């Protein structure tokens, strides 16, 4: 408290949006006053603020590159971090992060959270990220000796394991799904948990060439962004017809129900116009409205969700539900960003999820065999070609997997498919064709 002088950071206490600076300060104060038997430096929050202030001043970060830290027997779950000015900021000299595997879709009982808080106040910085981008509860900053202690308490007292980091399966994640969403086409939370449990070994013990992520979205709205951030994106969908409640449609048209569940209420967009707002925006133009009845040519629907999103009280997803499975999303390093590519148009998603587990197995085998070090699945798919990937998955090529067929004529053939094979005798040829 005495030491801290953070004029720049103090600026970030102003304004309405919750200030992380104020929050760190309140934690700093709490640490100064607490009776808890702190196992980490009391001044950790003070030093962190001072160090951040220095970064603001320098316009350069002040953490050293990486650093080894971890728990015995695991290869992931801990990110080592050391300050590059340890003498000036001794309380954050080592400031390692723990990634704690969140329960599916971030539901908590306060009892559990309070235990985490108690543990983390005592043995860590008292600072967290709720949550990290992958999904973990991020315990932000502790010293090297504390790591095993924390792990022991986590597993024994909280019955809670770490998540992933390094070249392994990363902590899977899912949208809220059936817990509270009427659009969920399968149980994302159970799928996420079930696969997390199945692959504990892959999650904890790096045996891959690089990271592998899986995320579970209950429907094409994509609330957990799986299509952009996971090597395997499992996205709910359905095969049969959208269920229509014609009376409820009328209620929307009459203005009794607000479109999009009221999500546009902040502005006067005029009365709801079903033709302009639904029929005309349907990307497949498979909807019709005759003033009385809404028609959907379900065979042509691509299940984009727009009509259902707009009139959730009138339209419901089909009953024959499952998921589309897409592969290969990743951030830009190295070959440029990728979105996941549709590979399995439809798979049923039911416990014990054997079909998807087998599929994952095949893909991991191939990736392990063919993938270069630090090559994401998506990059391998690009390098080897999508047709090869389909082979690996044991799936037949289908136009649904592409936006459009190739425009170049550079087609590879298998020798077996060519009558007479590839080997020819030039002498034979020369009999027909002089040189």
């Amino acid at each position: 408290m005495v030491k801290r002088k953070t004029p720049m950071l103090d600026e970030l206490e102003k304004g309405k949006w919750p200030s992380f600076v104020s929050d760190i300060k309140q934690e700093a104060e709490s640490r100064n006053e607490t009776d808890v038997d702190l196992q980490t430096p009391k001044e950790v929050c003070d030093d962190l603020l001072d160090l951040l202030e220095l970064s603001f001043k320098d316009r350069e970060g002040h953490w050293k590159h990486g650093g080894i830290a971890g728990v015995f027997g695991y290869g992931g779950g801990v990110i080592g971090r050391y300050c590059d000015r340890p003498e000036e900021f001794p309380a954050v000299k080592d400031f390692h992060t723990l990634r704690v595997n969140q329960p599916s879709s971030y539901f908590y009982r306060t009892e559990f959270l309070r235990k985490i808080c108690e543990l983390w106040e005592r043995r860590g910085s008292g600072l967290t990220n709720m949550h990290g981008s992958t999904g973990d509860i991020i315990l932000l900053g502790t010293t090297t000796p504390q790591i095993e202690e924390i792990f022991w308490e986590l597993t024994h007292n909280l019955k809670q394991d770490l998540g992933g980091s390094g070249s392994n399966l990363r902590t899977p994640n899912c949208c809220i799904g059936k817990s509270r969403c009427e659009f969920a086409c399968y149980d994302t939370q159970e799928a996420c948990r079930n696969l997390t449990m199945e692959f504990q070994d892959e999650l904890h013990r790096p045996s891959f060439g690089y990271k592998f992520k899986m995320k579970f979205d209950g429907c094409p709205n994509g609330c957990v962004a799986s299509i952009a951030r996971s090597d395997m994106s499992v996205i709910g969908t359905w095969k049969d017809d959208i269920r229509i409640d014609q009376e409820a449609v009328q209620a929307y048209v009459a203005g009794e129900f607000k479109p999009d569940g009221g999500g546009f209420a902040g502005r006067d967009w005029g009365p709801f116009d079903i033709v302009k707002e639904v029929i005309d925006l349907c990307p497949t133009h498979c909807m019709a409205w005759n003033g009385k009845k809404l028609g959907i040519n379900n065979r042509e629907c691509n299940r984009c969700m727009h009509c259902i999103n707009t009139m959730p009280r009138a339209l419901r997803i089909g009953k024959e539900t499952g998921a589309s499975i897409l592969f290969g999303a990743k951030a830009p390093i190295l070959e440029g960003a990728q979105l996941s590519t549709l590979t399995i148009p439809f798979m049923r998603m039911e416990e014990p999820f054997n079909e998807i587990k087998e599929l994952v197995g095949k893909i991991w085998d191939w990736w392990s065999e063919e993938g270069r070090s630090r090559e994401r699945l998506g990059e391998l798919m690009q390098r080897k070609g999508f047709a090869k990937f389909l082979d690996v998955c044991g799936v037949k090529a289908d136009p649904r997997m592409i936006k459009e067929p190739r425009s170049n004529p550079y087609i590879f053939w298998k020798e077996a498919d060519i009558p007479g094979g590839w080997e020819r005798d030039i002498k034979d040829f020369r009999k027909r064709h002089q040189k």
Partner: protein
Amino acid sequence: MGYDAKNPMKDRITDIGPRDYKEFLPPVIKKNFGKWLYHEILEPGVLLHVSESGEKVFTVRVGGARLMSVTHIREICDIADKHCDGYVRWTTRNNIEFMVDSEAKLKPLMEDLEKRKFAGGSLKFPRGGTGAGLTNIVHTQGWLHCHTAAIDASGVVKAVMDELYEDFGKMRLPAHVRISLACCLNMCGAVHCSDIAILGVHRKPPMVDHDNLANMCEIPLAVASCPTGAIKTTTVDGKKSVEVNNDKCMYCGNCFTMCPAMPLADAEGSGVAILVGGKLSNRITAPMFSKVVVPFLPNEPPRWPQTVEAVKKILNAYAKDAKKYERLGDWAARISWERFFEKTDLPFTEHLIDDYRFAYTTWRTSTQFKF
């Protein structure tokens, strides 16, 4: 009882996975699991979900800094204990959701949340983030924890959200607007598919710490890490090291990831790029990548005024001009990118023209343009 450093394997528990979410579901959620019929947004930040059974759950969504102290989390627990029978959840965009099972419990909860403020004056639990509005900025570690950051994360987010605060609590935009931030090209998050993305970038090739490189790095890995082949082995003062062909370097930082002796960060060189027009949902149009529309803005702590300004310009132009349900990227595509730069008043420079692997696919191969 407890961890015994001398006997680390004793009673060790591993591979138990996360806690089962089913233990943590509020009763009304558990009872109506998979039975939800429809939802309504009662007001910004307040959701109602109605079940086939007729039961209802009311959700109050509030924003927050993703970085939160245990003190803050305990306050959240207090609220959840008081109003929500001890249950609470977070969203995929780092908002907090308090759920109650009757309308009667809603108002006291909201009032309680509203009045809580940090010592510095900022709100602890601003309500909003629903519907056609702005929700929380998904972001990364920044100078607070990561070693490769070109910019800070939490600081920039706070600066931007303060300015856009109104839109978090209103649902007055043409569609969902997702802003994301990543502090380096590793892009930890879905920055590459966000309506507006704030991205930390470097502009100086790595320095090479010749004295220490051979000790700190595996040289072949460092050489192989470079996507443009800019790195070669060399010997400096008798020490094995690497040299960087600056003209081939695109400051991606992948070499630094592999080799700590090649730092890139620089007060003047590093800063912010802004991307726009990405999306994740399959609604109407397919998911799309964000596109770079501001190649560089300097790091300006503590409040990054130029970055904030650029984001505001983009958001305002979009809010004014787009049609209902039209995401930012769809708007830009419809009005044409030439108009996008006009309407947002952003300069177009050669830096924005792709020259990476798929560059050609972004060139305009038609005569269709607007003067």
